[in-house]
């Protein structure tokens, strides 16, 4: 296993983070790090514990170990407090609120903002600039949109919370390659703007195009920690998948 870049100004760092469902431990002690301006991809086969890792960081599942964010530990078992620190998740399956309109979903993204209208408008303008299609469909019920539009909405809603780091769980799930490329292009824009992103993804080639670093997760443990440019072929990656 090759070690990734040397430790630097990590914005998010897990320290021996484990997760369990009932009596079953699904995540062995895990140490990962995301630095400012990085897009870090978590790759691995089905059931490797990738989504669980994101849930564990947010405190949505039973955990041990610590998650340090901006140098301070994140509270455990209190997702509201975690999100208040600027750690925002775009969940697998998008988690949009179908019976609500696009605009209401975006308003919910800025829930913590309260009644600061100018700031809300600033954030909304930024989101609509990134995803103009959401602007065209503001009054549409979110549940009636296509999968790609729903994914845009899920990311847009997360951005409305002005995240300090964005956690994304399989944003390409169920999307055509063309739409996946479009979504990933937007993520690359966000990365270039300096937003740290932790991306869980099964479509490794697409993720590797934008990722700075990669962790390969297999059977609930980190099998490899690599710089993205160290992976040049499927074989480079496959060797870690079932180790």
């Amino acid at each position, binding site marked *: 296993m090759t070690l990734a870049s040397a430790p630097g100004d990590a914005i998010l760092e897990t320290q021996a983070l484990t997760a369990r469902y009932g009596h079953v431990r699904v995540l062995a002690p895990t140490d990962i790090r995301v630095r400012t301006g990085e897009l870090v991809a978590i790759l691995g086969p089905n059931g490797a514990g990738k989504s669980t890792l994101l849930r564990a960081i*947010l405190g*949505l599942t039973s955990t041990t170990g610590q998650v340090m964010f901006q140098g301070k530990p994140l509270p455990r078992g209190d*997702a*509201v407090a975690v*999100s*208040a620190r600027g750690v*925002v*998740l775009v*969940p697998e399956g998008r*988690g949009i*609120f*179908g*019976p*609500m*309109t696009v605009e*209401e979903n975006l*308003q*919910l*993204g800025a*829930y*913590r903002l*309260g*009644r600061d209208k100018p700031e809300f408008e600033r954030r909304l303008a930024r989101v609509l600039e990134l995803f103009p299609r959401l602007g065209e*469909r503001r*009054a*549409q*019920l979110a549940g*009636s*949109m*296509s*999968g*790609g*539009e729903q994914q845009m909405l899920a990311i847009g*809603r997360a951005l409305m*919370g002005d995240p300090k780091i964005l956690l994304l769980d399989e944003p390409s799930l169920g*999307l*055509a390659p063309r*739409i996946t490329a479009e979504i990933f292009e937007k993520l690359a824009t966000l990365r270039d703007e300096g937003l740290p992103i932790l991306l869980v993804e099964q479509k490794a080639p697409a993720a590797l195009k934008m990722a700075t670093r990669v962790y390969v997760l297999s059977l609930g443990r980190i099998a490899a920690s690599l710089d993205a440019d160290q992976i040049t072929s499927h074989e480079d990656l496959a060797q870690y998948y079932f180790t």
Partner: protein
Amino acid sequence: MKTLRSTTSPDWRSALRLLPWGLSALFVGYGFVAGGYPATVIGFALVYAVFVTGLNLFMGYTNQVSFGQNAFAAVGGYMSAVLTTTYQWPVVPAMGAGVAAAVLLALVIGYPTLRLKGHYLAMGTLAIGLITYEIAVEWQSVTQGYLGISGIPPLGVGSYEVTSDRGQLALLVAIVLASTFISARIRDSRMGRAFLALGASENGAMALGVDVARTKLLAFLVSAAFAALAGCLFVHVVGYVSPEVFGLHMVILGFTMLYVGGVGSVAGPLVGALIVSLMPEVFRGFKDYQDLAYGAALIVILIYAPRGLASLFDRAKARPRSADL
């Protein structure tokens, strides 16, 4: 060249959305014109509309289950009845005290109970309703048990009492409109969006910063206030209260109205309350088969309008599914 006209144009959709309100106005208008028994039936339906509006906030918006709303109606109703008959309080302050007492009870009960989820919450809240019913039966020195309390003054302000059928109906219409307006405002507020978000996914709402426990409790308190107001209205409209008024029957009727009208929609509680209250009257001609016809009609409605009658007209925000992504 022939132009295709979209059947989902904004004007058409707006008109469609007004239909449930128009139909409701028609029913209520009939009550005014006819007076007497029809006015009484419509009046009861309007009292239930207030009760179901509260139930809708908790069940339709936040997707929680409460079989115990009758408890809050009982607390409100009995409090107002006792204060006006035994202690000679004016009606409005007595109703205010009844609503406040119910909200306080909801706060005490809701804090521990709302930690339960799904079926457990349903059973927990059912127990609250059953306990309240037993208290109403057994606490005879205050409630007079099965005999009930009679001579409760009618609705009114100060020395002005609304005694006529039509007068009461007008007052109830105003209260229902105010309740519906409040419900719609809540639905479109930050708090309402939090209700809807936790109704869709508690984890999703939490991840956006919604304090799920606090928001759930808030929805419970608001729905309890509506239930208590309905309880107060009931006792002052009828002039009598007994434990049976706030029994399990009230819960079943409330649920039926909510699901027939449209759970989660603003117009649903009013539409459901009117339809479910009027159906037995419509089927009265069926004599022995009245209950059968009533039951069959409910089943047909729930099969063909599973989200309730009001939802059939609530197409304003829907658009055809995009096909390009």
